[in-house]
């Protein structure tokens, strides 16, 4: 009989941590964010030369790259690929009802759906924030090396704003998982909601209040914007995230398996 290795005690927080590190989730998050952080400033710096090679000698002139442009290139990629990746990973955690056996296992044992939602939200939001930070540090390093120095205060403030937006994206995913049961549907609904926000961003009346404003904060702060400008969006995003989590808990609690 083989020896049973007890290991560390299990709980729902450790479950989410293991979900990240025992599957390609953590690796994919880290690798893609760091990759984009390393490569995007290079593209920003050498985009003229790259386009000249790709475009068969067609010469396109760009103004000299600025440190903000280096970070901007990273931020714009993350707001697309990075956010979708975080949504996909979060959806995998929140769609426990997609599997009848898993849903029965969890739902017949927990006292409240909060017990299931809180660690899933927290761990995925922190993982997204951690990956974003790593990517931002890589982009910072590359930008500093190739283009010019990036002010630390503005950079860190921008990263903080972006991380709050990513947490909001995870909260949207949790609410979407309470509306649709499957993983693909949850991802689709979340992406649609997150895409609609930038469209609403065109309305000047609400522009400063929308969570999507925070996504571009790292660039805007480097371009001279003040952190106080993002306080309304910051407050709305935090409140909206809490509300979305409450909606998710209420709907998941009412759902039948």
């Amino acid at each position, binding site marked *: 009989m083989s020896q049973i290795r007890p290991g560390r005690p299990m709980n729902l927080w450790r479950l989410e941590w293991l979900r990240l590190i025992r599957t390609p989730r953590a690796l994919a998050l880290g690798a893609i964010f760091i990759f984009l952080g390393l490569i995007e400033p*290079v593209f920003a710096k050498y985009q003229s030369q790259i386009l000249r090679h790709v475009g068969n000698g067609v010469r396109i002139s760009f103004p000299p790259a600025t440190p903000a442009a280096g970070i901007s290139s990273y931020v714009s990629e993350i707001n697309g690929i990075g956010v979708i990746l975080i949504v996909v990973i979060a959806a995998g955690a929140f769609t426990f009802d997609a599997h009848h056996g898993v849903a029965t296992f969890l739902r017949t044992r927990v006292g409240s759906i909060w017990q299931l939602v809180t660690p899933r939200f927290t761990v995925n939001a922190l993982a997204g924030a951690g990956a974003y930070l790593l990517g931002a540090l890589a982009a910072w390093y590359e930008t500093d090396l190739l283009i010019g120095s990036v002010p630390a205060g503005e950079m860190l403030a921008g990263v903080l704003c972006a991380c709050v937006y990513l947490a909001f994206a995870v909260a949207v995913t949790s609410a979407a998982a309470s509306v649709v049961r499957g993983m693909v549907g949850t991802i689709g609904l979340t992406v649609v909601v997150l895409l609609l926000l930038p469209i609403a961003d065109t309305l000047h009346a609400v522009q400063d209040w929308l969570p999507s404003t925070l996504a571009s904060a790292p660039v805007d702060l480097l371009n001279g914007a003040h952190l106080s400008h993002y306080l309304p969006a910051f407050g709305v995003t935090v409140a909206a995230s809490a509300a979305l989590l409450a909606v998710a808990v209420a709907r998941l609690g009412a759902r039948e398996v």
Partner: protein
Amino acid sequence: MPGAVVAGGLARPLKLPPHLLAALVPVLVLFAALTIYCLIDLYRAESVRSIPKAAWAVIIIAVSWPIGPLAYLFFGRVRDQRRKESAPVAGVADNHAWAGADDARAGVADNHAWAGADDARAGVAAYPAAAGAAGQPIVTTTGLTRDYGGTGLFDVGLSVPRGCVYGLVGPNGAGKTTLLSILSGVRRADHGTVSLGVGRERLSVCPDVPEFDGWLTAYEVVDLARVLVASRTPGQRGDAGPVVRDALGTAGLADSANRKVGGFSRGMIQRLGLACALVSDPELLILDEPTAALDPAGRAELLNLVAAMRGTRTVIFSSHILADVQRIADQVGILRDGKLLYQGGTGDLINTYLRPSWLLRIADDAAPVTAALRNQAWATRVEPAGAGAIRVDATSIEAGEQGIPVVVAACGARQVSCEPVAADLESAFLALTGTSAMEPR
């Protein structure tokens, strides 16, 4: 800055601007790390998906970075290395050998199970004693209705005595899973009430198809099940090790405790579901088709285990294998089209809906015994059934069980065997549900 140092050395021979090379060094390090990780993972993997390992190695190395390594991670890697079914796993290897057994083998194993379960069967098997019948109901439902548009449950009044093994039987779509789901609290009834004699934290459920995250070990899954319940039950926080080990051992998974669940066969997953249900020492255990995925030997083990729980905890289990229900259930409920057609003792059901019959084998001349049996008031039919064999029908199970040995002894005959014939739950079920020509007495 290490990148700049490396870049300084490489910039001249490569004819690249030093700062560009310095910028690319971290990218190259990242790619190299990812590639090495993938190659190590590929080397250690027992198998990969889609194409051979060598082809994945080529893709990882040759396809543009980082597409090759990422393609392997997402499409090539077998997340949960599934061991071959024949892998020797002490304690359960024999059971695996039965996996995929055809019906004929299942029948043979069934007999083995009977032979090996004498103690558990005592007073339980064919005509279970109503040990739990006298207990107070631990589950009571009144007018329970869940209408899915013509199907579902309709006006079900369940009464499960405390400490009994309650078998819920019925054809597919009869409403068994719906009923158990409502009892478990994962579905709601449209009308009616459910009264539980225990708190929800003292109730454990094992669904018909348990599912677990494949990257957890069996130990972690059972420990998680324990922790979730313990967090709601004061006094249950303690040393997890022995409790989890016991549950795994009871379910026959002690040797697989450290294995990832993703590599388990369906039968092992079913056992793991049972271990999760048992780890919290529930008062009420709900098992939905617990033997559905088990091989015959595993089925027999599980049935013995459930039978042994009688008196210590209440077990409600559904099954479409009537022999299983007959073997261990002292109470039975028959569902059909969402309605509870019968509820009561298993023996009572057979007594009520079937004329009990035995095949008696005598070592000597059977004629005197046949004649003596024909004179018994309780014997409704006595017919020779070949050399030394007599078929005896009785008015009731008790009358036959008590009367036949007395007659054989009075005749001075040597009895070889006396087996019940056709007086099984399946026949009673068919009679009750009107799918047989047999009429109730």
